[in-house]
C-alpha cells in the first residue's frame, strides 16, 4: 500500500468534432453501424496541435488548479503512443514549455495501458519519498497515425489529453494494488507507426510510417479475459472484494468490450462509466479523460475505491486500485 494522492485532474479536448455521419462521407460506413459495434457517436481531431501541445495545455491547467509552484514538480511522465517524435520525449517538451526545471521527464510507451503503467512508475518513484510531487498525463494525437481510408480502424480513434497531479503526502489516499502484465507473443495483434529498416544503401525510397492495424477478434478476446483477471488479482492484492469497488474506470476502447467485462465480473453496468460516445478511443488519454469527467461532475468522491484498468497494444494490460 503506497501513499499516493490524486490531487487534481484536468483534460484538454481539441475543438474539431468529427461525427459518424462525417466519416460516412469519406468511407463506406454509417452512424448506425459504428454506434452498434462501438458505442462511438463522434470523436475529436486535433488540427495544427501535436501531442505535446495538448499535453502542455493539460499541464498548465493542472498547475493553475493546484496553485503548486511549477518548480516543486519532481517528475513528469507522459503516456503516449503518438509522441511528437522519437526524440525528444513528449514529457521533455512539456517540461520545457511549463518551466518545470526540477522535474525528471520521460514518456511511457504502453499504448492504451500507458496511463496505468505510468501510474505504477510514479508510485515506485514515490516510495519512501515523502512530499514528492508528480504529473502524469495521457495524451494522444492518433489522427496522424490513422489510415483515413480504412474503415475498420478509422472509425475507432480520437485525439485528446488528460492528466493528474500526484503527491506522496497524505494519510488518507492510497494506491492499494497494481497489477501489470504484458503479452509480447501477441505484439502483432495491434500495431501503429511501424517503421522499416533500410534494405539498400543509399536508400531509394523515403521513410514510411505505417498506420493502425488491428486483429479485432484477438483484441476483443484479450480484453474480455485479461482485464477481469487483473481486476481480480488486484482486488486480492488490495484485500478488497470486487463488490466493494465504487467505480471501474476502464480504458474506453469499445462500449461493447466494457459491457462484456462488466457482465463477466458480474457487476452492474452502472459501476462502469462510459464516455466513448463523445471521444472514441483516445488510447492512453481515455482513462484520465474519463477520470477527470467523473471527478468534475462529482460522481467520484474522496474515500471511494476506484479500479483503473487499461488494455491494448503490446499486448498490455494493467489494473490499479486506488482509495481516492
Amino acid at each position, binding site marked *: 500500500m503506497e501513499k499516493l494522492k490524486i490531487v487534481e485532474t484536468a483534460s484538454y479536448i481539441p475543438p474539431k468534432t468529427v461525427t459518424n455521419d462525417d466519416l460516412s462521407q469519406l468511407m463506406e460506413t454509417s452512424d448506425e453501424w459504428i454506434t*452498434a*459495434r462501438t458505442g462511438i457517436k463522434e470523436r475529436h481531431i486535433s488540427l495544427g496541435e501535436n501531442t505535446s501541445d495538448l499535453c502542455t495545455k493539460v499541464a498548465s491547467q493542472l498547475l493553475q488548479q493546484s496553485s503548486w509552484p511549477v518548480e516543486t514538480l519532481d517528475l513528469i511522465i507522459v503516456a503516449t503512443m503518438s509522441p511528437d517524435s522519437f526524440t525528444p520525449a513528449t514529457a521533455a517538451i512539456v517540461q520545457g514549455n511549463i518551466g518545470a526545471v526540477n522535474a525528471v521527464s520521460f514518456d511511457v510507451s504502453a499504448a492504451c495501458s500507458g496511463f496505468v503503467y505510468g501510474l505504477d512508475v510514479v508510485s515506485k518513484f514515490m516510495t519512501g519519498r515523502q512530499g514528492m510531487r508528480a504529473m502524469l498525463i495521457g495524451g494522444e494525437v492518433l489522427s496522424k497515425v490513422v489510415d483515413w481510408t480504412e474503415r475498420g480502424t478509422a472509425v475507432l480513434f480520437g485525439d485528446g489529453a488528460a492528466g493528474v497531479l500526484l503527491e506522496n503526502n497524505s494519510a488518507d489516499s492510497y494506491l492499494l494494488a497494481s497489477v501489470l502484465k504484458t503479452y509480447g507473443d501477441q505484439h502483432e495483434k495491434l500495431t501503429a507507426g511501424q517503421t522499416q529498416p533500410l534494405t539498400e544503401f543509399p536508400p531509394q525510397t523515403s521513410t514510411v510510417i505505417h498506420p493502425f492495424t488491428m486483429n*479485432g*477478434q484477438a483484441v*476483443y*478476446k484479450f480484453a*474480455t*479475459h485479461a482485464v477481469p483477471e487483473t481486476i481480480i488479482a488486484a482486488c486480492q492484492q488490495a484485500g478488497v472484494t470486487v463488490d466493494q469497488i465504487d467505480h471501474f474506470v476502464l480504458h474506453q476502447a*469499445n462500449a*461493447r468490450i466494457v459491457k*462484456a467485462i462488466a457482465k463477466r465480473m458480474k457487476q452492474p453496468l452502472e459501476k462502469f462509466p462510459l464516455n466513448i460516445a463523445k471521444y472514441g478511443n483516445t488510447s492512453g488519454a481515455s482513462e484520465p479523460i474519463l477520470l477527470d469527467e467523473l471527478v468534475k461532475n462529482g460522481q467520484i468522491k474522496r474515500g471511494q475505491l476506484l479500479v483503473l484498468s487499461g488494455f491494448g497494444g503490446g499486448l498490455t494490460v494493467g489494473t490499479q486500485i486506488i482509495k481516492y
Partner: protein
Amino acid sequence: MTEQEILQKVQDIVVDELDVEASDVTLTADIKDDLDADSLDVFEIMNELEDELDLKLEASEDVRTIQDVVNYVKKELDAQAK
C-alpha cells in the same frame, strides 16, 4: 461430449448473448442473418464456448450457422481428445 450436448451448450450461450428464443436457435439458423448477430456478438459467443469447454476457437467466415458452430466445436473437442 455428444453432438446433442454441444448443441444444448451453444443454444444456452446464444440465447443469453443474443437475447433470442431457444426455439429460434435451430441447427439451420444463420447466426448473423437469422439471429441478427454482428461480428462482436460472434466473438463473444466463441469466447463463452472457449471458456466453458476449455477450447481455442476462431470466429471464421466459414462458421455461419448453428450447425457450423456445433461441427466446429465437435472437431476441436475431438482433436483435443487425441
